[in-house]
């Protein structure tokens, strides 16, 4: 915190418990890299020395969802991957946040085919969208910092009526209804 330069070691300060906890959470985000395609390469670049995600406390990539609190969905989500993604999301412990990185994770991108889910946010609560194909590391860092701002404003205890965390209203809830697909090609 850099406070030790201003206050003597024997001094003390008062603050709110939720501010201390949120400070701890925002400063040690452990991402779960769900990298399924080319965006994952940029995610790796973000974590490596040139861009150094560690400066924002988020360098510990956890491949176990139990140890992670920020899911970064980086890449296309195929119809076979979607149930896996949901399972991994559900395995993460609260509190947890989701970044949808890149055009494909957010909308399906150019892959408007039967095999690619047209936006993981239809079936998963996403907190922050990072646009781009792929987004530059700076953009992803900005996305992580947006998560940090969300955490800063998100208080404990949870505000929801059922005791579960309700995040800020800035996240989109999935609301899309499936539509039947047209089938224009016919036999001869």
């Amino acid at each position: 915190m850099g406070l030790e330069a201003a206050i003597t070691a024997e001094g003390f300060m008062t603050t709110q418990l939720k501010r201390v906890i949120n400070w701890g959470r925002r400063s040690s985000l452990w991402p779960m890299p769900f990298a399924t395609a080319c965006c994952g390469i940029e995610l790796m670049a973000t974590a490596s020395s040139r861009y150094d995600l560690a400066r924002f406390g988020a360098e510990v990539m956890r491949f176990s969802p139990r140890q992670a609190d920020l899911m970064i969905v980086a890449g296309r989500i195929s119809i076979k991957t979607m149930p896996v993604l949901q399972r991994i999301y559900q395995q993460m412990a609260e509190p947890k946040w989701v970044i949808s990185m890149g055009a494909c994770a957010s909308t399906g991108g150019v892959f408007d085919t039967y095999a690619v889910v047209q936006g993981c946010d239809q079936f998963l609560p996403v907190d922050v969208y990072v646009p781009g194909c792929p987004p530059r590391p700076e953009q992803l860092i900005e996305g992580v910092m947006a998560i940090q701002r969300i955490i800063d404003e998100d208080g404990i205890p949870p505000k929801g009526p059922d005791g579960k965390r309700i995040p800020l209203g800035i996240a989109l809830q999935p609301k899309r209804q499936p539509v039947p697909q047209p089938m224009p090609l016919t036999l001869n």
Partner: protein
Amino acid sequence: MPAAKPHKPNLDHPTLKLVKEKFPDTKFKATEYRGQTSLIVAPQDFHEVMRFLRDDERCAYDFLSECFGIDYLNYPAPQPGRFAVVYNLVNTKTADRFFVKVYVDPSLPTDGIEKDPALVIDSVCDLWPSAEWPEREVFDMFGIRFNDHPDMRRILTWEEYPGHPLRKDYPLRGRGEREHFKIVDRSDA
């Protein structure tokens, strides 16, 4: 634009002559494009011809480079059948390449996944074990089944997938497969 000159296949691949000699009573077609020769074989003769191409020491196609399916629905030029399965054979000593093509025509509507007895050809897994996965892919994507295949299951989509997605009458955006997932929301975990 001047009309393209009709392509005149140059059928001088030495293997064609050997096949002709070996199977004098069997009907074949052959074609050539940019130096690559294809032999078109009827499904019932297919396995025997493939065995000859592998075992005869003048052919000796010891490597199955790949095998894939084609759907010719709405194809501009007339074709002998709706679906084709193409085998790409290589002789690793001479680097000679030879294509064998089998056409099959469906007898059932092609929008379903039920077994169509007309869409069956013999597997060549017993000749080239490397055919196993490509043939499974052809089955998965086109619904063409292979006789005597050791493991005739889908390979890319899951077992109950309600279609064969590379068929041309399968809609590009699917029939809702990408839309039907449960919705996980914040209160769900």
